[in-house]
């Protein structure tokens, strides 16, 4: 689980942060804080689907479900176990 979270966190930092010194934790709000905008969420969703060979339905891949690394990791884990 920690590996999964770290992978997601690293992706978010590389993909969305302009300032490399900005610190993010597993609980940092991503969408509600404007770090990941709703437009860019699609690349995060597709990254997770490709990386973990899962398919996240649109009604589960919501801004709320993607708001922190912890929430994303829980969602991915749920679909990996299906």
């Amino acid at each position, binding site marked *: 689980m920690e590996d999964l979270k770290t992978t997601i966190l690293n992706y978010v930092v590389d993909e969305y942060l*302009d300032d490399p010194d900005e610190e993010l934790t597993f609980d940092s709000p991503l969408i509600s804080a404007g770090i990941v*905008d709703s*437009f*860019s969420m*699609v*690349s995060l969703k*597709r*990254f997770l689907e*490709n990386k973990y060979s899962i398919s996240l339905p649109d009604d589960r891949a919501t801004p709320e479900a993607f708001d922190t690394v912890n929430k994303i990791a829980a969602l991915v884990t749920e679909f990996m176990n299906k």
Partner: protein
Amino acid sequence: MGYSGHIKGILQRELSAIEQAGIFKKERFIHSVQSADIEVEFPAGSSLKRVINMCSNNYLGLSSHPEVIEAAHRGLDHRGYGMSSVRFICGTQDIHRELEQKVTEFLGTEDTVLFPSCMDANTGVFEAFMTAEDVMISDRLVHASIVDGMRLCPAIHDTFKHSNMEHLESKLELHSDKRIKVVITDGVFSMDGDTARLDEMVTLCEKYDALLFVDESHSSGFIGKTGRGTHEKCGVFGKIDIITTTFGKALGGASGGCVSGRREIVEMCRQKARPYLFSNTMAPVVVSGVLKVFDILSRSTERRDKLEKNAAYWRKGLEEAGLILQPGDTPIVPVMLFNASLAQKFSIDLFGEGIYAIGFFFPVVAKGAARIRTQISAGHETHHLDKALEAFRKVGKKYDILGKTKQEIIDQYGL
């Protein structure tokens, strides 16, 4: 009459919050024609002040050009005031088609369709030919009207880091399974004044079988050797699939816009773009004025050459004064102040010195990137620029920022 005190209260609180956040927009009333010298009433009710305009999109100085005004008068006399119809019912005159053909030739495309504004062109174009099977991949700093157009379109949307070609390529790879892929960018970015890397983008789009969309609103008429736009400057004239641009900036400055590009995409806009279908197009008087603008531009490149010279002179003067500028070579020259409050005060002091230039800050630009955005015109003479430089030096000295680094200004004023 459902406008209850409750609703009024909600809206009043929201307006107060905007005011308290320091982002409440107030109009300044201009009592003259648009030009380098204007007479402004600000604040409302105060006596008129003659100032130099350093913040209009009147890049070529054609907004009040006598030939354009005369052509507009002729248009009014011969084609009337309004059409009282959308294009496809009974709202298309010969001059609408004539303008579309001129634009097509000027931009080096296959066909063009006019819209009431470029905002409308951008909001209508994507939805007209893309479906949920497709993807739009946009630069993260594209204009708000493009963002709105993407929101209205069922295709999925993604972004790439500003002007980062490596990141764009990774997105093209990620979405390679999509039916239609469209890469979306501004030609010149309005807040920073930098230019898209269209040559590299064309190469990437060819490699990944994607279309390239460019908004040329801050480029058409003056970027490139003959003013055709960013695609001319980057050596990819004739290779852009979709161009949108405006007639509300350099090309006369009145109103109107267009989608220009591949024949089938333009035709899809005529069939399906909602701002085209459900709104009157450009008024005959404006079309007549814009036709004259293209006549003037086809006679010589004098105006865009003067603009280029003015912009270089202005940029050099500000740099020599010790101000920090966003790098670039377009007529958009942002003077970086970083702190929002400083940008507002700086703008007010400039106005006191007879210079009209506006401060921009979050949320229009990123936090900590507040600035005065200056825009140069071919209508500026050297004496205008010299007076404005003197004012920037004076106000810069007052706030003790001349010759200071970004960090020193941030240390002094905060972010």
